[in-house]
């Protein structure tokens, strides 16, 4: 934070404009107001469309909320929250969201780091490989969901054809219609679409690895895994924490894949917390109950992010 020294005390050159050079006092007042004026538009939009809804959601979660005009919205206290713990679909959705995090986050980090390590040093046509690895990140989730659905279609899907070639089984597996295989397809597409993001962050972070230390470690006879463990990984700690936090948050918000690939089925068995929350609100119109579920997830995610950042700060000391 050394870059934030104040502009206070600088001569009259610091002003909002040549026209505003009047008395020293009004100038100082203006100077004090400047950062707030600069922040105002962004903060106003953020306050209205993001911050306020956070509190509004918490408020709604205590009501049996109806969106129909004229309907009464009785206050129900904590009962929406107690309901969460007795809802078997919430249990399934929480388990699926947990699996989603445990399966996709480590794989995205490991593959992203591996790809970044491969491409960080000089390589022919590296810009091309880098671009190719990142491109899935900018594609639309709708496009990706349906392309993967087609790859894993029971009739004409490439996945079944490949399986038939390798195993000799000509059984048409209906991947997206079953719980376990449906999850696998969705995890695969999540990893496929996400790896480029962690890759690009790690690629930038690898520029900061002190190369002299690599050389020194090798001269001292350290093995390659040891070099990675002792030199490369420690200097990537900030990047790894950042990527982990954002990937976990991303995995916890999984909605589009489920909505598009399996619709949560069969029988809600592939539902995630967010896909179930949206279904509760916009299909079942249980706004209060859905808001309680969303608020609880927000709280858990917030605690998780805070803990992760806290741990990172401790390590840096």
């Amino acid at each position: 934070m050394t870059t934030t020294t104040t502009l206070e005390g600088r001569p009259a050159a610091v002003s909002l404009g040549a026209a505003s050079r009047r008395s020293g006092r009004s100038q100082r007042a203006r100077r004090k107001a400047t950062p707030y004026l600069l922040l105002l538009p962004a903060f106003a939009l953020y306050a209205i469309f993001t911050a306020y809804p956070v509190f509004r959601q918490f408020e709604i979660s205590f009501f049996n909320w109806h969106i129909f005009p004229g309907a009464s919205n009785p206050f129900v206290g904590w009962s929406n929250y107690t309901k969460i713990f007795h809802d078997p679909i919430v249990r399934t959705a929480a388990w699926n969201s947990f699996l989603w995090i445990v399966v996709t986050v480590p794989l995205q980090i490991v593959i992203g780091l591996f790809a970044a390590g491969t491409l960080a040093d000089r390589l022919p046509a590296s810009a091309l490989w880098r671009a190719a690895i990142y491109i899935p990140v900018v594609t639309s989730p709708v496009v990706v969901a349906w392309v993967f659905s087609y790859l894993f279609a029971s009739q004409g899907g490439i996945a079944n054809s490949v399986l038939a070639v390798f195993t000799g089984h000509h059984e048409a597996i209906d991947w997206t219609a079953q719980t376990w295989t449906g999850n696998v397809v969705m995890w695969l597409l999540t990893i496929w679409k996400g790896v480029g993001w962690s890759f690009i962050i790690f690629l930038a972070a690898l520029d900061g690895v002190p190369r002299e230390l690599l050389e020194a470690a090798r001269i001292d006879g350290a093995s390659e895994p040891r070099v990675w463990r002792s030199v490369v990984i420690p200097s990537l700690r900030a990047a790894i924490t950042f990527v982990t936090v954002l990937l976990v948050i991303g995995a916890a918000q999984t909605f589009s894949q489920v909505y598009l690939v399996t619709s949560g089925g069969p029988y809600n068995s592939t539902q995630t917390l967010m896909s179930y929350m949206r279904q509760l609100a916009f299909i079942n119109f249980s706004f209060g109950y859905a808001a309680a579920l969303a608020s609880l997830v927000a709280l858990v995610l917030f605690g998780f992010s805070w803990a992760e950042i806290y741990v990172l700060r401790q390590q840096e000391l």
Partner: protein
Amino acid sequence: MRRAVAKPALSSTGLFGTRPKTRLRLAIAVVLALLSVGPLIYMVILSFQSNNDIEGDTVLLPTHPTTSNYVVAWTENSFGHYFANSFLVAIATVIITVSLASLAAFAFARYKFPGRELIFYTFLASLAIPPVLLIIPQFLLMDRLHLVDSLVGLVFLYVSANLPFMIFFLRGFFAAIPREYEEAFRLDGASTLRVIVRLIAPLSLPALALVSMFTFSMAWDEFPLALTMLNTPSRFTLPIGLSDFIGAHTTFWGPFFAGSVIATVPVVIIFVVTQRWSRRGISLGGLR
């Protein structure tokens, strides 16, 4: 490959061992690149396959290449209209986000003022809140503002969702710009706004290009919010048009893949144009 071998410094400071292992790394890079673009290339292939041939057996290359899927998608299924909607929403989101985030990031990078930390962490806290999570209160808010089923409403939500990260990112970049440049500018009587537009922005082009690319692709691809807010087909953005299309006729894979290609090409172009700045931009920005 000769170049890499000829560079002696690499031999002891490479990330993978004492030799550059160029050939092995190149092979891995090619495999990773193919796995990444493979499904998309397959999508392009399928978009040129006549619809009757897509159903049934596995298609590897078009047996009867045709552009009719594109004609059907663009004309009969209003993909042209969805395209225009998506484009307007994405461009508006980029312009507003980049402008507002630059002003705010400049305030955080250059001024010390009461409440600075508090406001910064208020922004930062929302990084822990995925956009889908707020869909209920945002829907109710939009309903009250009469912005449900409106592209303008969607732009507000997208700008608000993008601002915190972009402010965080640009702040790091702006803070790295030497203060001396600014002082010279100020001595000539330039206003703060002029300093940002004429000095900070040109010096931050890599970061601004990256922010624009991230914001554009988010607004272009966003699904859950648009799905919840938009009802009228004439206001659909491309993702909603695509998902609505496949919901309406599940066996129309040909036009669907043509629509998917139409929806993918602009983001890929924008990414390719901006990607040369990405490495420098990310390492100089807030993500160090």
